[in-house]
């Protein structure tokens, strides 16, 4: 076969599969959106669900998902950044480092139902945090942390070594080099990692049923004191997220419009994830540009 022909065939195949993947994605998204979009209204997005009557919304669940994301990231990002930077810049290669890396890897492949049950035993019962947002956030940290650590480590390792040398030669301390020279360069990758782990927060159900719980107290959206029991911001209250809610109504929903609600909630979930992605990327780019004075990302 002539190289040119081979090249053509290979290109055709690659393009074909790329298009196939895009088509599947669009089909899936389209299916979810078409089924759910007409059910979405301002009322649906803001009102509380109904147990047996029709017309319930997903307001608290949507809020819970977003708030749980914030809480989880508040724990995951500092820990993940710290550990990733330690692994990339400070840990000496050796047995201990390899052991830590092994643990991180094992952690990331834990099935989420196990993490959920483990969270139930340890966080909810033993540490008596109960079914709460904070329990859910800690459980989610268990599988988001490995991703965050690995991506941070990778991001720092791919910064050219010459950057570090230039910093040392100027008499900068290692910490200053890490935070002011390397971190800005590593930032786009770290943001991608954060987005990936955020996606898991939105989508996770199994690990949350046993930690964040499957119910929400009657939330008072005019009380923003995190210490009040009915305040939406109280991290110690149970919180059913959107994904858990979808699972619940699909399996045991009693409302006559349960199917439509599930479809609507799914569409809301997908749109939220998309929006979060776009926003995170946009702000990440903004910060990167500000820090590196560049016009484009990379």
């Amino acid at each position: 076969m002539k190289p040119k022909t081979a090249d053509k065939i290979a290109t055709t195949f690659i393009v074909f599969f790329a298009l196939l993947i895009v088509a599947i994605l669009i089909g899936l998204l389209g299916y979810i959106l078409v089924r759910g979009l007409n059910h979405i209204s301002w009322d649906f997005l803001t009102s509380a669900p109904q147990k047996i009557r029709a017309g319930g919304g997903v307001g608290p669940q949507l809020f819970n998902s977003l708030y749980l994301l914030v809480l989880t990231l508040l724990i995951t990002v500092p820990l993940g950044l710290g550990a990733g930077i330690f692994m990339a810049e400070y840990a000496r290669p050796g047995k201990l480092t390899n052991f830590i890396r092994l643990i991180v890897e094992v952690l990331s492949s834990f099935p989420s139902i196990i993490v959920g049950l483990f969270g139930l035993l340890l966080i909810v019962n033993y540490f008596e945090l109960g079914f709460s947002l904070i329990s859910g956030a800690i459980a989610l940290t268990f599988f988001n942390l490995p991703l965050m650590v690995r991506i941070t480590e990778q991001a720092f390792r791919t910064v050219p070594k010459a950057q570090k040398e230039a910093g040392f030669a100027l008499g900068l301390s290692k910490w200053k080099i890490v935070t002011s020279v390397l971190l800005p360069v590593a930032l786009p990758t770290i943001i991608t990692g954060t987005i990936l782990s955020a996606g898991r927060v939105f989508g996770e159900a199994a690990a949350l049923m046993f930690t964040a719980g499957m119910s929400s107290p009657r939330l008072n959206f005019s009380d923003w004191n995190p210490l009040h029991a009915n305040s939406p911001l109280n991290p110690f209250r149970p919180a059913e997220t959107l994904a858990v809610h979808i699972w619940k109504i699909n399996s045991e929903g009693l409302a006559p419009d349960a199917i439509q609600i599930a479809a609507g909630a799914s569409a809301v979930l997908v749109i939220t994830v998309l929006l979060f992605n776009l926003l995170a990327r946009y702000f990440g780019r903004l910060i990167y540009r500000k820090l590196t004075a560049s016009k484009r990302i990379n």
Partner: protein
Amino acid sequence: MGTAAAVRESFQTENLSIFYGTYEAVKGISLPFAQNTVTALIGPSGCGKSTFLRSLNRMNDDISGSTTKGSIWIDGVDINAQGTDVIKLRQKIGMVWQKPNPFYKSIYDNIAFGPKYHGIKGKAALDEIVESSLRRAALWDEVKDRLKDSALALSGGQQQRLCIARALSVNPQILLLDEPASALDPVSTGKVEELIKELKEELRIVIVTHNMQQAARISDYTAYFYLGSLVEYDKTEKVFSNPENQMTQEYIMGRFG
């Protein structure tokens, strides 16, 4: 061999050996670096020039498994001794590499970053340092209208001069250059060489180069390294016109190395 100067220079090495593990990459080298001179380090690839140069501001500290023996004297202090404040030391000694490595920051921030870290405050003072450093590196006129642009948008030659300006920003007394022009086109190379000649009026310069014409053009003293040892050290004219060692002669004539 005429190695260690009779009078101790205010900057010189004494019996400096550098190891990677057990491999001795630099073998007991004593070299003086006089004020207002350019010293060229030449020799075949792998002979230890970069290793030697890096050790002069303790950059080898950051390579795991590397150890250094001997002394590096600066103003009567052995900076190779334990307890040296490496951060202070590195302010006194600037370094520039073969490949330009500007920070992923604006042109302005590339220069202002070091001084700011070392305690210079106030926009006026920093502006002044940025301008004077860029002028000393003969880059000011080309970039003065785009100081806020990314340094990575500059050409290779401009980036290299920016790196020189960055090294100058903390007012070093010594400048170490590791093949600073080998990745540049002839015009940029000319500019960098011109710059080196001007800068030596203010400080001392040690330069590694593979370009014999360049060594002859810009240096006052030349040291020829071979397999980690110092084979010959003398005034550049002497080394290039009438070297004492046969090996040096052959290397310079391009017959080996």
